[in-house]
């Protein structure tokens, strides 16, 4: 049975999600009373903040990506592009910490403003802060995606533009805009989706009655109000909204979390202007300042004491003990599902395997956590079960991203080597040893690193199914922020950032394009 591993993976995912759904529905049949004004205001705020965040992130990314494309060759361009990749690797909670350190009430900018007698910045909590944080995450991502689109314009066409004496406007209309336009709907969809399911940012910077999203409302309904009926309605709405968003994204053909291929030096002949330099400088400052604040505040913490803090040690070990097996499971399941698709025959079967690998894009971490939170409370909290669920949920949530790294690699290797291997009569073990392992090990390592980094930064699941004995680094960071132990929080944020970025960077370095 060549597709057995794929069926096993599918069964495990179905059990995990089905169990969560069943737990939610069984304790709380939905009633009509929950569709109140508050529900509609949460739903509309979720869509409103995601729409505005997308508009800001992508709207600003277009001119900056264009400026970077025009300034195709300057010292430090490679480092700048690496810098723009960092927010993607940073756990959301850590980034929020950096943003607060710069734009918060007692942040750098307000400090600077006070010194010069300027009025204080508006309160960061609420919609403004959410938009700021979402732009911090998604502006660099959108820049990288759009720059990759511009980099795909062949060198010959840039030269043709030079030869035909194209003005800036003609270049934009005939070369830059067609390149950007092709990818723009997908980029908009991706950023919208990320903002739609953003949890940590809204939990810390929003969360009040006027700034709550569906995910945060589910969390509040269960953690603070223990109102499972409301949670079920919110969860259903969340699945519907993300499902519709995903269908729209799929229609435009962009794969979520598709890693852009950008090179340090663009093929484009260089032509820079003062405006380009200003745009690049402003975007750099916008991304760099919170990261710098994160590092400086972290270095100011008592790292020696933190290193000896039993809670920090335990949280670090728990984080690793969750992230490593979660990444292993995610990569193995991705391999099984992709292999199942490759070797399977039926269209329906392939569709099932494909859906299993992507279903957790619709089911957010909070949703999974909510279901199992209800189940754990109903049957009695068991640490081992909670830890296993945490690992399984993290693996399931990282699965779509593992699929996107492993899938193309497996399909490419199969296309390139299957017939040759068959012709040479290679045995299964010989194929594994001589063909598959050497060609697949680097994509596997990349997928492992990405999924591990994602799992290390998770807050959605742990926030619900964790307790005082099951605390990961993000959960500990939230605890210390909540109890105003800012120095400790700064140190923990730095540790988490270093670990996540190191793993992410290692994975990125090992990336192979087949």
């Amino acid at each position: 049975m060549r597709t057995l591993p794929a069926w096993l993976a599918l069964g495990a995912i179905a059990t995990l999600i089905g169990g969560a759904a069943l737990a939610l529905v069984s304790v709380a049949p939905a009633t009509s009373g929950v569709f109140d004004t508050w529900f509609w205001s949460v739903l509309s705020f979720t869509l409103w903040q995601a729409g505005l965040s997308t508009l800001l992130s992508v709207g600003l990314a277009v001119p900056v990506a264009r400026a970077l494309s025009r300034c195709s060759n300057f010292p430090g361009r490679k480092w700048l592009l690496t810098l723009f990749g960092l927010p993607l690797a940073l756990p959301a909670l850590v980034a929020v910490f950096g943003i607060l350190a710069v734009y918060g009430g007692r942040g750098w900018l307000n400090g600077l403003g006070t010194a010069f007698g300027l009025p204080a910045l508006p309160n960061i909590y609420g919609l403004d802060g959410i938009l700021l944080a979402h732009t911090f995450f998604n502006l660099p991502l959108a820049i990288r995606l759009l720059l990759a689109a511009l980099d795909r314009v062949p060198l010959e066409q840039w030269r043709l533009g030079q030869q035909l004496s194209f003005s800036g406007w003609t270049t934009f209309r005939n070369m830059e805009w067609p390149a950007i336009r092709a990818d723009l709907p997908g980029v908009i969809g991706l950023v919208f989706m990320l903002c739609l399911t953003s949890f940590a940012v809204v939990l810390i910077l929003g969360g009040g009655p006027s700034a709550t999203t569906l995910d945060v409302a589910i969390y509040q309904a269960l953690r603070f109000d223990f109102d499972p009926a409301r949670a079920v309605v919110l969860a259903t709405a969340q699945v519907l909204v993300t499902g519709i968003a995903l269908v729209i994204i799929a229609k435009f053909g962009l794969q979520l979390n598709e890693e852009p291929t950008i090179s340090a030096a663009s093929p484009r002949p260089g032509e820079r202007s003062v405006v380009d330099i200003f745009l690049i400088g402003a975007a750099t400052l916008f991304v760099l300042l919170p990261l710098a604040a994160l590092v400086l505040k972290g270095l100011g913490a008592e790292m020696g004491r933190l290193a000896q803090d039993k809670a920090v040690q335990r949280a670090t070990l728990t984080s690793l003990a969750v992230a490593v097996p979660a990444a292993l499971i995610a990569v193995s399941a991705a391999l099984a599902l992709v292999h199942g698709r490759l070797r399977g025959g039926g269209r329906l079967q392939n569709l099932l395997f494909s859906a299993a690998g992507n279903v957790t894009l619709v089911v957010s971490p909070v949703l999974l956590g909510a279901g199992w939170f209800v189940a754990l409370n109903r049957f009695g909290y068991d640490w081992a079960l909670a830890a296993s669920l945490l690992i399984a949920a993290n693996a399931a949530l990282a699965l779509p991203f593992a699929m996107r790294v492993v899938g193309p690699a497996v399909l490419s290797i199969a296309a390139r080597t299957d017939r040759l291997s068959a012709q040479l009569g290679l045995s299964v073990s010989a194929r594994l040893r001589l063909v598959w392992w050497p060609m697949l090990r680097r994509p596997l390592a990349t997928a492992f690193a990405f999924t591990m980094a994602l799992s290390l930064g998770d807050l959605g699941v742990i926030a619900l199914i964790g307790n005082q004995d099951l605390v990961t680094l993000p959960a500990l960071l939230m605890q210390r922020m909540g109890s105003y132990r800012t120095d400790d929080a700064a140190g923990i944020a730095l540790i988490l950032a270093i670990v996540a970025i190191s793993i992410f960077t290692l994975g990125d370095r090992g990336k192979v394009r087949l």
Partner: protein
Amino acid sequence: MNDTLEITDVALTLGETNFAFDLVCPASSTTALIGPSGSGKTTLLNLIAGFLTPQGGEIRAMGTTLNAMPPDRRPVSMVFQDHNLFPHLTAGQNVALGLSATARPDANHPQVLEALSNVGLAGKAERYPGKLSGGERQRVAIARCLLRDRQILLLDEPFAALGPALRQNMLALIGRLRDERDLTIILVTHSPTDAAALADRVAYLDAGRVIVSGPTQDILSDTRLEGYLGNWGMKNHSVVALGGNV
């Protein structure tokens, strides 16, 4: 002598490769650049077109030094091996860019239609590049060069992706246009057959230098180039003797 294209002591370093070119292309001649991959053929075209700036030496054409002149001001048009057309514009609009690159390209301008007709593409102005064959796409690029009306035409392996029949058609087309318009053509090719069919002069490049140049017949039968040409020159002596007759 003023109409001659002269490349004198032109020096350029790219990465670890040092290029140094000396070449004279008489007005209205067709020069084929041949040589192994990485020998500098395309680099030389890019220098003439203005896409690369020489670090020393001089490029002169029409009695003017071109070194500091931007690509669009040079008396040069270039056809690349690929990506000559903007995929979102029709064939006519692509050609119309040769008339005016700032206005909205007018695909139905009489000059555009005439240029397309001139390259055998009458009636295909409304087609997008994706709906044209490889040979037709190259013809559209050549039609645009005709509208730009520059004296020097640079062809960077324009027939590389074409089959034998299309190749012959393209060679015939270029030969006809050269004769009608008195063009000076520099052609990069890996095919001695193409060089023999179209060019009256050949320059052999290796390791970033023009090793030898002269009349096609002499160069293609030069025994020093046997390592590159194999026994092509000996076997095709009669073809060489008829060089430039398309």
